[in-house]
């Protein structure tokens, strides 16, 4: 029995690490549920765990793959263990080689394990360049005197700088399917296996940077975007539907209606609670680096516009242009028109100037019910002035949501992100999975 409890709680831990929220009560349900299932029947065990632990069908692929990996036969587990040991040995060899190659005057440089691992992944010419630099520095002179060990920190900083450069050049590692490593080896092996399986069985388009989406995945991506916009539209229309829910007693109407019953208040009348529907204003950055993202987000807004009234959309790069979609218009035709007409598509970015134009020519678009959705990587000229303008606009509107296409890991490196993060609600949004997550949250 204890063995079963342990297995279930470890499985729950894996699911939690993968981002599936599971409460203690649900874990207890799962354990109790399994006592009613035939433990020799894999399908029943899976169904019992699914029914008690998984409450969001978008996470079904994650659950399926986690179940297959976690409840795999012992020989597969043995294989996994052997593979992990092999990987650890390779890593240890790589680190030791890096330590022996990265030396200043015979002393190893003080670098992090991550930096040493990065060094070992560099192409040979990159390694050689760093080694040559270390060689020259070790034998170098300053003001006629040979460099001594006191220069080691400076040399280390320079090597770190070069490694940072290479990190950017090599790009991000293959994403772990949006699964964040836990730091526990066994768990991370399982996560890696789940990520590989997901990639193999479901394609990577959900977690792929939108700018890299392959053409073959476009139909699936478009279909998902349509689904997301429909879901949000129905949520907004339902949530802000003029509700039949009643408020306080309306004395005037009650007394008025009582006249027809000889003064007896047979029918009570209640006040309706006022609720105002948000008006959406989309500002979409279509500068050179952003154009690909913009095409997906505009498609999303097009889907919303088909279902909801009053959505204003604008594209901007060096200046602002109105692109509000007309209901019933085909998306592809609308986009071709916008792109042919647009002066802004693919230019540089100046958000401050674009906001000037918005305030000067479209002041009606800003009201207390307006929700501004801004899609941009924050890289703009006059970022400080744009942030001040946004702050002022923020006081007049319901809220400003910033969909940032820069990965969150890079946010701290950009001053502009910090500026805009203060004046808006910023979400990381460079994959469809991000967009889906934002839409599922109660963001309006």
């Amino acid at each position, binding site marked *: 029995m204890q063995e079963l409890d342990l297995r279930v709680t470890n499985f729950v831990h894996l699911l939690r690490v993968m981002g599936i929220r599971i409460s203690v009560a649900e874990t207890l349900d799962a354990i109790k549920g399994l006592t009613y299932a035939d433990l020799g029947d894999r399908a029943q065990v899976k169904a019992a765990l699914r029914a008690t632990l998984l409450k969001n069908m978008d996470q079904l692929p994650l659950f399926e793959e986690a179940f297959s990996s976690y409840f795999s036969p012992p020989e597969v587990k043995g294989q996994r263990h052997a593979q992990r040991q092999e990987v650890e040995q390779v890593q240890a060899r790589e680190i030791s080689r890096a330590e022996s190659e990265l030396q200043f005057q015979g002393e190893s440089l003080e670098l992090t394990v991550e930096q040493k691992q990065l060094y070992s992944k560099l192409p040979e010419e990159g390694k050689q360049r760093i080694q040559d630099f270390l060689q020259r520095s070790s034998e170098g002179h300053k003001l006629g005197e040979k460099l001594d060990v006191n220069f080691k920190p400076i040399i280390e900083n320079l090597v770190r700088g070069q490694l940072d450069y290479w990190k950017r050049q090599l790009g991000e590692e293959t994403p772990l399917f949006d699964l964040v490593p836990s730091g526990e080896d066994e768990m991370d092996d399982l996560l890696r296996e789940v990520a590989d399986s997901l990639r193999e069985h479901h394609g990577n388009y959900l977690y792929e940077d939108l700018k890299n989406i392959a053409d073959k995945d476009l139909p699936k991506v478009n279909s998902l975007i349509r689904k997301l916009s429909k879901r949000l539209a129905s949520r907004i229309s339902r949530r802000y539907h003029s*509700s039949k829910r009643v408020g306080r007693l309306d004395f005037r109407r009650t007394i008025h209606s009582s006249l027809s019953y000889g003064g007896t208040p047979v029918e009570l009348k209640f006040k309706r609670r006022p609720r105002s529907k948000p008006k959406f204003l989309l500002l979409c950055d279509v500068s050179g680096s952003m154009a690909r993202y913009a095409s997906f987000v505009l498609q999303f807004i097009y889907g919303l516009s088909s279902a909801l009234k009053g959505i204003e959309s604008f594209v901007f790069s060096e200046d602002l242009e109105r692109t509000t979609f007309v209901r019933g218009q085909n998306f592809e035709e609308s986009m071709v028109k916008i792109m042919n007409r647009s002066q802004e598509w693919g230019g540089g970015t100046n958000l401050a100037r674009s906001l000037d134009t918005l305030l000067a020519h479209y002041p009606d678009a800003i009201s207390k019910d307006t929700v501004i959705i801004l899609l941009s990587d924050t890289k703009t000229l006059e970022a400080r002035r744009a942030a001040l303008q946004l702050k002022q606009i923020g006081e007049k509107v319901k809220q400003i949501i910033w969909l940032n296409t820069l990965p969150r890991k890079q946010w701290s490196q950009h001053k502009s992100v910090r500026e805009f993060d203060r004046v808006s609600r910023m979400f990381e949004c460079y994959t469809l999975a991000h967009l889906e997550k934002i839409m599922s949250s109660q963001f309006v």
Partner: protein
Amino acid sequence: MAMDLTLDSLARSFSETGYVTTEDDQILITVYLALKLGKPLLVTGAPGVGKTEIAKVLSKAFDAELIRLQCYEGLDEHKALYEWNYQRQLLRIQMMKDSECLAEKDLFSPDYLLARPLLKAIQNSGPTVLLIDEIDKTDEEFEAFLFEVLSDFQVSIPELGTVSAQQIPMVVLTSNGERELSDGLKRRCIFLYVELPSVDKEYKIIRAKVPEAGEKLSRQVAQAVSLLRSGLDLRKQPSIAETLDWIRAMMALEAERLTPELIDKTLNLLLKNKEDRDGFEKNLGSEDLVDQVLQAEYKNAGR
């Protein structure tokens, strides 16, 4: 009731009431667990996949009274739980205004209480299935109120005291997934997602519900619907109910097998959206659909 329940007996009950399940859809095991654990069953899935039907089947299988709470925007506790019959109370006051023997407690007695579905389910002494249909259409406040009722199965009526359930009802909640339900509600439920059926399952459903349709036509219709669902990017996927309407329409036209003409005449019953109809004409067409159905038939026959 749940004590004597076994998975086999539940499977028999489902089968006797004509509800088709397969091992893949996990419906039986999930319903079984919900009953055994005494937890509400939350059923989600696209419209028309048979979510509500599960509650009806349970009611028949356990000879339990089915009490239904249909949810809608603006539904509040007065409509769901109880309210006082205000008009009747007023009438009583008017009638007794000259008499001095009318006490306040006379007006707040069970005679003047209008029990709504939730209270009815709690008060019912016999076995009860409480169906809370389309929970995603209510407001979040109501959802919060609901999960309090579902955790304790008791209600406090200030004028009367606390009413507790004599027998915990079987609760089935359904949702079309139009709105994300709160974590609190989901946590308290056993979760079942009903998918659109496979060809085999839909064939079995057709045979169970429209036995007068021949085997051949039933198989072809199930195959055609499956091809439409998977092959076209439809805005509204045909539901099981629509498949049944489609085949009934074909039966009315005395059809024995699927033909392009038959599809052209009856497809409106399946694809009810102009964009879906246009997409079908543009990307597939009735002749190609029949061809693909026949190909699938040959392939299956060859197996």
